[in-house]
């Protein structure tokens, strides 16, 4: 009897999962509690009531845990397919990593990077992760004098305006400055 009761919640749980009628789990859990306590009845005197209650709750927790593991494993094949793709593709998938385009350029201690379009504090921190150890100059109004420019967002510098494109991505573009005066002149605003 006790082994049947022990197996029952697992079977009911799997049934509910297969049929995807989740609401069935509520009454199932309640019946499990009563069945579990009832099954203990002949030797219930051996146990303290708190032990019976704790054992029942523990059993339910275990069922819920197995459900979580089942969900995890059912999604694991997706993870495996995901890992087969390139590292760059993975990075582009995540919104928090849209600054990944900065990784494609090496920044040195001697570089001064003008950061344009960093509207939120987050932008500055995410950019610094990749731009370090170069010095960051935050542009306000006009472009600070620098040898590299990073523009966050969709804006870009025209090819004739004295800047060579280093990298581009979902989060923005990075340029090497060839002629700072050209960038500052009319018609080259961005």
């Amino acid at each position, binding site marked *: 009897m006790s082994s049947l009761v022990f197996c029952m919640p697992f079977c009911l749980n799997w049934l509910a999962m297969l049929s995807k009628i989740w609401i069935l789990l509520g009454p199932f859990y309640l019946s499990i509690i009563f069945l579990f306590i009832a099954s203990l009845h002949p030797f219930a005197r051996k146990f303290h009531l*708190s*032990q019976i*209650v*704790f054992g029942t*709750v*523990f059993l*339910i*927790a*275990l069922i*819920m*845990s*197995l459900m*979580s*593991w089942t969900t*995890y*494993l059912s*999604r*694991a094949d997706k*993870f*495996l397919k*995901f*890992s087969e793709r390139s*590292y760059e593709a*993975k*990075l582009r998938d*995540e919104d*928090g*990593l849209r600054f990944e385009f900065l990784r494609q350029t090496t920044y040195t201690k001697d570089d001064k990077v003008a950061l344009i379009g960093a509207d939120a504090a*987050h932008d500055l*921190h*995410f950019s*610094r*992760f990749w731009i*370090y*150890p170069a010095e960051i100059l935050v542009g306000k109004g006009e472009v600070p004098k620098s040898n590299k420019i990073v523009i966050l967002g969709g804006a870009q510098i025209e090819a004739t305006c004295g800047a060579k494109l280093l990298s581009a991505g979902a989060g923005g573009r990075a340029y090497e400055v060839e002629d700072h005066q050209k960038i500052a002149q009319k018609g080259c605003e961005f």
Partner: protein
Amino acid sequence: MEVTNLFLAIIYFQLTGILVFKLFVPQNEKTNVLYAIAVSWILGLGISTFAFFLFSLIFPQVTLVQILAIPFILAPVNYYFKKRVKVTLNKTDLIGISLVTFIGILLSMSAFAKPIFSFDAIAFWSAKARAIFIDGRVTTDTLKLFMSSDYPLLVPISQAITSIFVGSFNLVLLKGLTLITSLNILILIYYSVSKYFHFWAAALTVIIVSSITPFMDLTIGEHAGEADIVFALILLATVLAFLHRQFLLSGILAACLIWTKQEGLMPTLILSAIIFWKERKYFWQFASTPFLVSVSYFLFLKSGGVHGQYVLAGNYQRDIVKYILYPAQAFREEMRTLRLWNLVWWMFFATILINFKKVLKYPTNVVAIIFFGQVTFYVAVFAWTPHDQATQVATTISRLVFQLLPLGILLIALTLGKENY
């Protein structure tokens, strides 16, 4: 090659930890293998990162040579003292190791499918690590560039050391460190529960904890690479060492706790006060290491003009009752959510309510005091935070509750169980 080097880094931390563990565990005392593995891992991370920090005060650049020197210095010291440590391994321990290894294999399927990418990791934990890796040392000028510049450095330096082994800063491979730390939490939970219950109860507890959403999130998901999972492991190990009356080792672990996150000061102060009150002759054995570590790091920060955001910029002009009630209610709401925490916190509070008298007995009450002291500390920090309170509570509460999860399970085991060995 990079993967092989990651394994070498993991072996390096474990080996360094074993050498330190052997030095500080009491002679001829029986030590369980699970406890030895987990504590050695923490000591390996703690000692090698703090040594890296000290080396960077001396050398212009810390290289692999200096990093490898640490176990080479510790090995002859071990040989000189010739200490014998009796490590016990029984069948149930093997079951625990096998179960955790199996869970590790399952988790690694998705752990290495995504890089570290959460805001906290990219803004400061891993950002500092990358800067330390590039510079080859720790300087206050570099720390000042990043958010939360005053935060302790165990996690950033451990990532930097791993990157030095690997040869590049790889945000995917660095998740290996978090994964090993998470598995050590499971090992220590298995040990804590099997100490008081039959081994199957311990195994089932490990299965339950491993499926909890914040555990998955911190191990393989968005928040991997942050410090909370390391903090949770060290907090449990510190309390276990205290319960084993290994006060020197507990003190070293408490120092590692402070070296991981500033909130480690609270349990350290509570334990110091309890040891001063109950076991006064061991007070300095416990308190000296955390005191030295915190003072030296504080002086280092002050010398470079790095200030703490909470002390200076705290908001002290608020309707304080309202601002205390909000995070307190947030803890209640977080803990009662089955989707996140299964029934663990329901069992925790039910255990305390049913066995209230037992919880008050020494040394179980020490675990309870640390637990609730830590919750009170978090509520106080939220009440005076310079940031928007609701946003900060919403973005951090799951991770803070996770820090207390292993301790909560220990408290359940201590209250309901009988010591087996």
